[in-house]
């Protein structure tokens, strides 16, 4: 009965209730959008990084040649894979990769091109991801390559053309082979990095990596949240078996670490002068979390803005509801006196006021959430075209929607309800403290 009475009180002053509700709803929609954007950006960035890198945990290898040159290679990826499976990762997906900086030549045109070599088993996943402009990925086999659309345009090539691919081997020697273009396609997950795809055996041969070896071994996890934990287990179990780079080491600038991912998982011919010497094939284990660090730094700023906006909104709601219910108290003094005379207790009067505030806040915040979700969904339909790398990483297939999780939505609504109740508590207590006789004598 109190609930229906509270609802009737709200609807009695429609204009005031609508205005206050609209204010709360608008604020809720803004917060929902902002929070939704940051959450979606994190999800997109993680997905993009794992797709372009080939997984959630990456193992790369280094060796020092007799001439002191560092070369990027994993001599025995099969051993690492077996070891990981023995650790309990038998249900995860393993994939080998190599990469190179190449120059594609066609006639008198040339173009620098990042190249990644993938195994036959990864072509199907690639097919789902690539946006094919010409050709057919079914014909992507040995002796063929898939080039980005921009590269094909700049070179003036099309499907079926043979191009020279010039690169340096892992020891820095010049090498050239011809490849036929099987397809022209863009990889949204490459985030503008424009990668050409080779079959792993072809690229390995081009950069003089022996059969069965590679430059990186990626593990795709069913539960990416466990990447750090699994990487730690892998590291601990490999200690003493192979030379290892300490976990978490690398360029101090996290953005450089991130960019290295898109230049390829390999380290190309680094001079040894700044490195400590070691014997054997040193393995480095990296996780998606490390790659996400610069992303999280950017998102951290957005979260700060979102949090500040949320606090400001709460303050505004607090003040707004408090002022409104002060006014309601003044307007309804006689009414309160009547209710008390009819037998309503102080607690019931208190509850009535709080219910009014609570119902208004719940309704407004739920509508605000719905509006925020609609707007976020609508924005997710917008395609942003070609953006710089640092922006592409947050998009999914060129789009950015705003999708707030159930947990965050519930937290938002509960926080608003709490603030609404807190704001109404003062006036509610004053209303509950009114003496019936005194209230009835008051002129409105």
């Amino acid at each position, binding site marked *: 009965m109190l609930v229906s009475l509270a609802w009737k009180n709200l609807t009695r002053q429609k204009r005031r209730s609508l205005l206050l509700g609209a204010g709360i709803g608008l604020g809720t929609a803004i917060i929902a959008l902002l929070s939704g954007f940051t959450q979606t950006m994190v999800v997109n960035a993680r997905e993009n990084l794992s797709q372009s890198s080939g997984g959630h945990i990456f193992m790369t290898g280094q060796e020092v*040649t007799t*001439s*002191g*040159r560092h070369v990027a290679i994993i001599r025995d990826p099969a051993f690492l894979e077996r070891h990981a499976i023995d650790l309990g990762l038998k249900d995860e997906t393993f994939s080998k990769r190599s990469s190179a900086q190449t120059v594609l*030549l066609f*006639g*008198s*045109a*040339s173009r620098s091109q990042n190249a990644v070599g993938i195994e036959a088993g990864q072509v199907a996943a690639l097919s789902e991801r690539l946006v094919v402009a010409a050709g057919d990925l079914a014909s992507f086999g040995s002796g063929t390559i898939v080039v980005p659309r921009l590269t094909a345009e700049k070179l003036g090539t099309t499907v079926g053309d043979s191009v*020279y691919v*010039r690169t*340096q*081997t892992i*020891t*820095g*020697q*010049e*090498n*050239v*082979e011809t490849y036929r273009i099987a397809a022209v396609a863009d990889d949204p997950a490459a985030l503008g990095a424009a990668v050409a795809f080779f079959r792993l055996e072809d690229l390995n041969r081009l950069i*003089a990596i022996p059969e069965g070896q590679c430059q990186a071994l990626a593990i795709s996890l069913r539960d990416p949240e466990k990447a750090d934990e699994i990487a730690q287990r892998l590291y601990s179990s490999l200690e003493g078996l192979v030379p290892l780079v300490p976990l978490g080491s690398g360029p101090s600038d996290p953005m450089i670490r991130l960019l290295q991912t898109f230049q390829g998982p390999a380290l190309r*011919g*680094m*001079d040894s*002068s700044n490195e400590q010497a070691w014997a054997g094939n040193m393995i480095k284990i990296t996780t998606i979390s490390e790659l996400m660090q610069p992303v999280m730094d950017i998102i951290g700023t957005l979260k700060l803005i979102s949090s500040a906006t949320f606090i400001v909104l709460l303050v505004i709601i607090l003040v707004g509801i408090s002022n409104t219910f002060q006014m309601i108290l003044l307007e309804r003094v006689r009414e309160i006196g009547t209710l008390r005379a009819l037998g309503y207790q102080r607690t019931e009067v208190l509850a009535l006021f709080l219910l009014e505030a609570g119902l208004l806040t719940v309704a407004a915040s739920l509508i605000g959430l719905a509006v925020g979700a609609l707007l976020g969904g609508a924005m997710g339909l917008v395609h942003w075209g070609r953006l710089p790398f640092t922006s592409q990483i947050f998009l999914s297939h060129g789009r950015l929607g705003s999708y707030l999780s159930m947990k965050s939505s519930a937290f938002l609504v509960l926080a608003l309800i709490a603030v609404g109740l807190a704001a109404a508590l003062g006036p509610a207590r004053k209303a509950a403290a009114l003496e019936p006789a005194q209230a009835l004598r008051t002129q409105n």
Partner: protein
Amino acid sequence: MKTLIRITIILIVLTAPLGMATAQTQDFSDLLDQIDSLTNFKTGDFTATLSMVSHDPEAGTTVRKVTQFRRDYQDKFLVLILEPEAEKGQGTLRIDQNVWAYDPQSRQFTHASLKDTFAGDTKNSDFRKSSYFEDYAVAGETDGKLGKFDCWIMDLKGKNDEVTYPTERMWVSKDIRLPLKIEGYSLTGVLLRTSYFFSWTKISDKFYPSKIIYVDALTKGKNTEVDLTDMSRDPLPDNVFTKAFLEKVSH
């Protein structure tokens, strides 16, 4: 007696080709050593000004003025671009087995390699002392001609992975015992670059190519002509072969 003489003659005739072949193989390996000796400055320094004209079907024609300093007995060199203004100050320095590329825009040195391109179709290794004997083995040889010049044509195979071209074919003038043409091939045997040495200049008791044309074999119409002038054997201060010097003269 007559039988003995006949046997001796037969033996000489049969073994003569072997002896000649052995002598020729040694000669060709020695020839590489001779080329190194004729072109390397075992003592002292070398300075030259280079005019480089690069033709690129995509980028057009670029004219560069470059200065080169070399100290072969320490395997050091410095090459510095003086013109055009857009590239002025870019340079490559080799010291202590390291190669450094300098960018005057960022004022930063980055590790480079002898195999990297310096400018146009030239490689950093083109400015280093000759080390054919150390880096290459003769895999085959034949007589031939290059235009009207009688030449030995040698197929060279890299002995290590530090060489820019894993295999090369070299035309050496029988007259002056210096290269007239060198073809550089990739690991897969694809011709990458042809270098033509049109003239050699004698400086003191050494020779230096004064006109070279590097032709890119993969891109039609892409080549670089290099002319050397103002060659000098005057001694250079030690600080020329330092990062500090390169940084200073670049600005």
